């Protein structure tokens, strides 16, 4: 319960400053701690798939204005 919530909170705090890619990485990384069934390699793959999916659906497909990379 804690890690799902914390993962979402981390996503909320990072999306505007760190951008979509890092925010998703944080969300999957922290969120994956919720279950012992997920192996680290699986988590990494899931994270990459999710980044690719969200980028193609939300940024390319729907043209939403979400920051993608951190603002330097």
């Amino acid at each position, binding site marked *: *319960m804690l890690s*799902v*919530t914390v993962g*979402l909170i981390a996503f*909320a705090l990072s999306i*505007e400053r760190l951008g979509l890619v890092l925010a998703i990485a944080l969300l*999957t990384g922290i969120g994956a701690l*919720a*279950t012992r069934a997920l192996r680290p390699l699986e988590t990494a793959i899931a994270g990459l798939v999710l980044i690719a999916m969200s980028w193609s659906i939300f940024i390319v497909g729907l043209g939403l204005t979400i920051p993608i990379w951190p603002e330097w």
Partner: protein
Amino acid sequence: MEFFDNLAVGFGVALTPANLGFAFVGAMVGTLIGVLPGIGPIATIAMLLPLTFHLEPVSGLIMLAGIFYGAQYGGSTTAILVNLPGETSSVVTCIDGHQMARQGRAGAALAVAAIASFFAGSISTALLAGFAPPLAKIGQSFGAPEYFSLMLLGLIAAVVLAHGSVVKAVAMIVLGLLVGLVGSDGNTGGTRFTFDIRELTDGIDVATLAIGLFGVGEIIANLARPAEERSLVAQKITRLWPTGDDFRRCWPAVLRGTALGSILGVLPGGGATLSSFAAYALEKKVSTEPSRFGRGAVEGVAAPESANNAGAQTSFIPMLTLGIPGNAVMALMIGALTIHGIQPGPQIMSERPQLFWGMVASMWIGNLMLVIINLPLIGIWVQLLKVPYRFLYLAILLFCGIGVYTVGNSAAAVLLAAFFGVVGFILMKLDCEPAPMILGFVLGPLMEENLRRAMKIASGDPMIFVQRPISLGLLIAAALLLLIVALPAIRGKREEVF
């Protein structure tokens, strides 16, 4: 005939390639989330709500509606094959559907469920087309006092028809009303319940609340549960077509289920879930051999599946004609309309005939698509059930996050959703159904506005609610409903059904 002209307009809108595409996407997504346990139509519609802003209003509604009724089809697949309800509305389908699958008749059970759903969907869409225009006419004569009384009746009916304990349902609705008050007072501009948090002054968006309660809350609840044993019926589904005996047994059940579902769908607090439970109870009662139920009776699949689809379609009637949501999904539909600046209410039908009739026509087309999506392609959906939840929940969590964020490009909303996720989890632990909370949340501000307007018309005299005949009638109906729940005999019955 005006009716056929209207239908022609509707099919003209619904048959454009773009809208056909959106109906298809909606039906596919609906089936997908219907098949997958752990994510329901409320959370999905809430997640996709912000995206509809980029679409034509009618396309957005067509897609969202497709998700809602598509989930009713998909939910039965999981119920029959895995003995897990994909949706709450297919809980009772598990009982006999899974037994049929165990007896090697999974194909017949799936076919009966799809055909029953299609039949019920067609009939109830016709009912929607037939009854909505006269109802909207009546609605146009309603003033603020009538609306207030109607919504009061709606909330009370939602309590009476809610699943489980009455006290908990009341608590959920009142909690929803309170959360609905957060933000600026519409008349004075003063802030209420904002605790000096700047982000709360605009109030809470319905999508944020719904994603938090249903999306995030559901994830936490699923992870907290020990991993369930899925008894997937593994054998190949060979025979799809039901036997003649099946048909003979199930057609009266389908008719009864459709009728019951259509009626219950219109009632506030009704809709798909209630309809399926009630239809199963009714079938068991009228059956000459009730002992067959629970052992693979085909009526036990046909009745709830037709009822949940009928209930899903007819619950659009009060939303489209009066602008009053009867359940949480309709509350989100209202949200989708307001995103586009469309004021929900009886004027929709006269001012935007394309929107209304296009939706009605698309519902029938969508139902037809769903039969095709569900029967020949059943193998694909079965494969999908093998995807472990540990991959799914990350994706669902991410879509929850992005969905909430895009409502208003606000990171604060995501934090709020995380908060409501924890609230939703606690409510589920306490056996409180969070759906009435969404209803209270959406109806609260509407009721307040109409109450204030009515008081202004009457210069502060509350007697206006009993002096107007329609308003008085609605209030009497509300009082009668309350009386009914209080009667011990009916209370016993109610507990039996739910």
